[in-house]
C-alpha cells in the first residue's frame, strides 16, 4: 500500500495498532474456511469514530476494507479477497452492559458471544444463539453473519435478538438503527437488513440485544435407529406432537463410526443414525415432555433410547456430538463444511441424496447437524493438496447445493454465502432476486469497497473452484 495512505491512517489510529509486517499480514489472510488472501494492511480500531474516518479515506481512494472478528467464519466472511485493509475488530471490546429492567444487553462488537452468555446467565437471563464457536467468535461477527446453532430450533437465530445497532456505513457515516424497544415499526427495518449482510453493507460498532429469562432445567435423550428414515420420522413426530425441543441433533452412520473410532462413547456402530433431543423449561413440564419424546422414538422404531439421569450422563450424551469435529478431522487435514438447509420434512430425502453424492464421488462425506430445523452439516474430509480429489469435491459440493434447492431448501442455514457459495446465488434467488440485492449493495456502497468479493458471484462464475 502506498506510503502516503498509510501515513493518513496513522493520523487516525495510533501506529501500534497498524500492522504492515508480512508476519502480521499473513496472520490476517485466513479464517476457518478455505483460501488465503494477503491484505495490504491490518488495523485495530478502538471506536466508531476511527472506523468512520478510515471508511471515508477508503472511500476516497477506493481501498477495500474487511471487518474481521475472531475469524471463525466457515464461509470466508473476513477474507481480504481483493487486498486492502483488514479491520481487526477484537479491540472494540469495552462495553458489555446487561440491562435487567429492559431485558437487554448493550455490547461492543469485539465482545465474544460466550462472554455475553456468561454475563446474562449470571443474572438469570439468557442470550440463546449458540454457534459452536461462541466461546471464541465475536458478537459483531455473529451479527453480520446471522449465526446460529442447535438452539435455533426453539429460540430462533441471531436476527431475532438484535433490536438496535450503531454502524459505520461504507461512506463513513455513523448511523443508529432500531433502538431499545422490542416493538419498532418506524421506517424500513435496517437492523434486520444489516444483520446477516456478511459485512457488505455496514460495520457494526455497537449492538442492543434482546435477552430472555433463562430456562430452569434441561432433559436430554439419545436415540439410535437402524434406518435413517426412522430418525426422520422421529423428528417430525415429536415436532408435531406439541413439543418444541431446545435442540434436535442428528448424526449419520459415518459420523457415529468416526466418533467411536476416535473417542469411544458407547454408540452402536451399526446404527444408521442417532438423534439427540434436549427439552428445556420448568422441571415438571420437561419431565413430561422427555417421556413423551422417549415414547415417540420407540413408536417409530428406535433401536435404543437413553435419557440422561444426571448431569454427568447429560454431558456424556453431548460429548458424542462434541466429538464429531475432532473425530472427522482425523480422516484428513482439509474439512469442507457445508450447511445446506431443507424444510424439515425433507430431511430423509436430503439424507438420501447426500448418500448418493458420497458414493458417486467416492468421498469421505459425513452428515450431522441441527435436524430439528432442517439445517444439516454435510462435511467432506479431504486433503487440499490432492488436486484430483479436490476436483471431485468441487463437483460434490455443487451437487449438495443443487440437492438442497431442489427440495425447497437454501444454500446456507447459518454459515453465510461468503466466497464459496456465491456462484450459486442465482440458482436460489433467480436473476431478478439477485439483482434486487445488488441494487441494495450499490445504494449503500457505491464504490464496492466494503467486504468486496462476497455474496455476489463474479461475472460468469457458476461453480465453486477449490483448486
Amino acid at each position, binding site marked *: *500500500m*502506498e506510503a*502516503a*495512505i498509510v501515513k493518513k491512517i496513522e493520523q487516525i489510529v495510533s501506529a501500534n495498532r497498524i*500492522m504492515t*509486517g*508480512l*508476519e*502480521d499480514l*499473513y*496472520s*490476517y*489472510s*485466513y*479464517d*476457518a474456511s478455505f*483460501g*488465503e*488472501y*494477503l491484505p*495490504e494492511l491490518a488495523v*485495530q480500531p478502538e471506536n466508531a469514530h476511527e472506523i468512520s474516518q478510515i471508511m471515508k479515506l477508503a472511500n*476516497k*481512494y*477506493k*481501498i477495500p476494507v474487511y471487518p474481521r472478528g*475472531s*475469524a*471463525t467464519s466457515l464461509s470466508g466472511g473476513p477474507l481480504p479477497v*481483493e*487486498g*486492502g485493509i483488514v479491520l*481487526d475488530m*477484537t*479491540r472494540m471490546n469495552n462495553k458489555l452492559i446487561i440491562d435487567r429492567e429492559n431485558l437487554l444487553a448493550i455490547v461492543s462488537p469485539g465482545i*465474544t458471544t460466550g462472554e455475553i452468555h456468561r454475563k446474562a446467565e449470571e443474572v438469570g437471563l439468557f442470550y440463546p444463539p449458540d454457534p459452536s*464457536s461462541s*466461546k*471464541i*467468535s465475536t458478537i459483531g461477527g455473529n451479527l453480520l453473519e446471522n449465526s446460529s446453532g442447535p438452539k435455533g430450533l426453539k429460540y430462533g437465530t441471531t436476527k431475532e435478538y438484535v433490536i438496535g445497532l450503531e454502524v459505520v456505513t461504507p461512506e463513513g457515516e455513523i448511523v443508529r438503527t432500531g433502538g431499545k424497544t422490542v416493538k419498532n415499526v418506524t421506517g424500513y427495518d435496517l437492523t434486520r437488513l444489516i444483520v446477516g449482510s456478511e459485512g457488505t453493507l455496514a460495520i457494526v460498532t455497537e449492538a442492543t440485544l434482546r435477552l430472555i429469562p433463562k430456562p430452569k432445567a434441561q432433559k436430554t435423550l439419545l436415540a439410535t435407529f437402524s434406518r435413517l428414515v426412522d430418525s426422520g420420522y422421529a423428528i417430525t413426530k415429536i415436532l408435531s406432537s406439541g413439543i418444541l425441543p431446545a435442540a434436535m441433533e442428528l448424526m449419520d452412520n459415518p459420523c457415529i463410526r468416526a466418533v467411536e473410532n476416535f473417542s469411544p462413547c458407547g454408540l452402536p456402530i451399526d446404527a444408521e443414525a442417532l438423534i439427540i433431543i434436549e427439552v428445556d423449561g420448568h422441571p415438571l413440564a420437561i419431565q413430561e415432555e422427555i417421556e413423551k419424546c422417549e415414547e415417540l422414538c420407540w413408536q417409530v422404531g428406535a433401536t435404543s433410547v437413553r435419557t440422561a439421569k444426571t448431569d454427568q450422563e447429560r454431558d456424556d450424551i453431548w460429548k458424542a456430538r462434541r466429538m464429531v*469435529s*475432532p473425530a472427522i*478431522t*482425523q480422516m484428513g*487435514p482439509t*474439512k469442507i463444511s457445508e450447511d445446506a438447509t431443507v424444510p424439515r420434512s425433507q430431511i430423509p430425502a436430503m439424507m438420501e441424496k447426500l448418500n448418493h453424492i458420497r458414493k458417486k464421488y467416492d468421498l469421505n462425506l459425513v452428515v450431522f447437524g441441527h435436524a430439528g430445523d432442517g439445517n444439516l452439516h454435510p462435511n467432506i474430509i479431504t486433503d*487440499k*493438496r490432492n*488436486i484430483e480429489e479436490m476436483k471431485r469435491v468441487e463437483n460434490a459440493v455443487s451437487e449438495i447445493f443443487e440437492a438442497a434447492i431442489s427440495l425447497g431448501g437454501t444454500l446456507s442455514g447459518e454459515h453465510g454465502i461468503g466466497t464459496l457459495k456465491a456462484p450459486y446465488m442465482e440458482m436460489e434467488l433467480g436473476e431478478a432476486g439477485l439483482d434486487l440485492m445488488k441494487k441494495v449493495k450499490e445504494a449503500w456502497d457505491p464504490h464496492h469497497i466494503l467486504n468486496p468479493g462476497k455474496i455476489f458471484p463474479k461475472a460468469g462464475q457458476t461453480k465453486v473452484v477449490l*483448486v
Partner: protein
Amino acid sequence: MNAPLKRTEPCPTPQPLSLVPKKGNRLYELAYEATNQCIQCGYCLPACPTYESMGKESASPRGRINLVKMAAEGKIDISKHLAEPIDLCLGCRACETACPVSVPYGHILESAKEVIADEQTNQNDKLKKLILKQVFPYPKRMRMLGNLTWVYQKSGLKTIVKKTKLLHKISEPMAQFESVLPEIESPVKRAKLGTIIPAKGVKKARVAFFTGCISDALLNRTNRLTIELLTLVGCEVIIPKSQNCCGALHAHQGMTENARELAKQNIAAFEETKADYYINNAGGCGALLKEYDHLLEKEEEWAERAKNFSHASKDISEVLVEFGPLPFQKEWDGVITYQDSCHLRNVQGVHREPRKLLQSIPGARFVELPGSDSCCASGGIYNLLHFEESMKILDRKMEHVEKTNATTVVTTNPGCLLQMRVGIERQGCSSQVQGVHLVDVLADACGIS
C-alpha cells in the same frame, strides 16, 4: 492533496498450492505435516496468554502455526518474519488442551525454534547457547553456582548489593529475580548423588529421584524435603549418580540435538536404578521427561528405552497421592491457593493431585485461583528475555491472586515459583503472602523443616 492516490501494488492473489511446498526446506520436513492438521477454527485463542496480552493474531497459537506453515512454504522469511512471533510464545501449551483436533503445537514450536536457532548468529544468541551448552549439562558447575549463591546470601554481600541497588542499575529483571530467590540451604545438606535413602515404615516402592539442574543448585531445600516426603509414604529413594539436566531449556531454545544427548544420559542413568518410578518435582522438567519418547522416537536403539523412561516418570504429587496419605502433624493457618505449572497441567495432565494434597492439609482453606490454568508468564527464561511482556501477564494474574485472600501461593515448578514470588513482591505484599513449592507446604504441615 487532491490528486487521487492510486493503489500501486496489485492485489496479491493466492498462489497455486501445487507450486508452494518446497522440499529441502528443513522446516517443511520437520513440521509442515503437523501445521496442516490445524483447521484454523480458533478454539485456541482464548487459551493463549500472549494472545490475551498482546491482542493480535500473530501472537496466537493459530497465528503461529500458520506462520510456521508459511515459512515452510517459503512465503515468509524465517529470521525476518517467523523468529519474533515464535520467540514471544511462552510455550505453556494451553492451546493443546483447547484444540479440538489435537494439533501437536509443542512439536511445531520446537521445530520452529530449532530452525530459527540455526539461522540466528547474533551475540546475545551465542551467549545464550554457550551458557546452555557449558553450564546446565554439568552438575558440578551448577552446584558451584548454587554454592556461590549460598555464600553470597550468607556473607552479607547480598545486603550490600541490596543497599547500593547495584543490580537495579545493571538489569531490572535480574534485580527483581535476585530479590525473590529462596534462601539456599547449606551445601552440606544436599543429598549425595548415588545414595539410597530407606523408606520409613513398610517399603511400598523403590523410586529414583530426578534432582533437576536448577533445583539441585538453588532449591536444594525443596529437593531434600521431596526425598523426606517420599520416604514418609513408604518409598525407598535412590538418587541416580550420572543423572543430568533434563534438556528442557535446550529444547525450548531450539537446541534439540543437545536435548537428545541429555535425554540419553538420563535414560541410561535411571535404567541402572531398577526403580519402579522416576520422580521429579519440577513441572517443566517432568514434561520433557515424559516426552523423551517423542524426542527420541526416530532413533531406533533409543525409542523403546525412551518410551519406558517416559512411562516411569512421575510428578511428586502423583506418587504422594498414590502412596499417601501423608502423616500431617499440624493445623494450617490461612488461605492456600494454587497456580498450575503449565507443563505439569497441559503436558503431563496433572492438575487434580496437587489440589487434592493441598485440600488434605488439616485446617487449610483451599481457594481455587481464577485462571490458575493460564500461564504465569515465567516460561522458562521468557521472563528474563521478554521482561515487560511477561510482567504484563503476571500483574494481571496477581490481581486474581489478591481476590482469593490467599496467604500462601503454591506452585510446582522452580520457574513458576520465582515468577509468583516476583508477582507477590511487585504487589508489595511479601510480608503477608508467601510463594512456595507444593513440597515445602506439605513438608511444613508434616512437621519437617
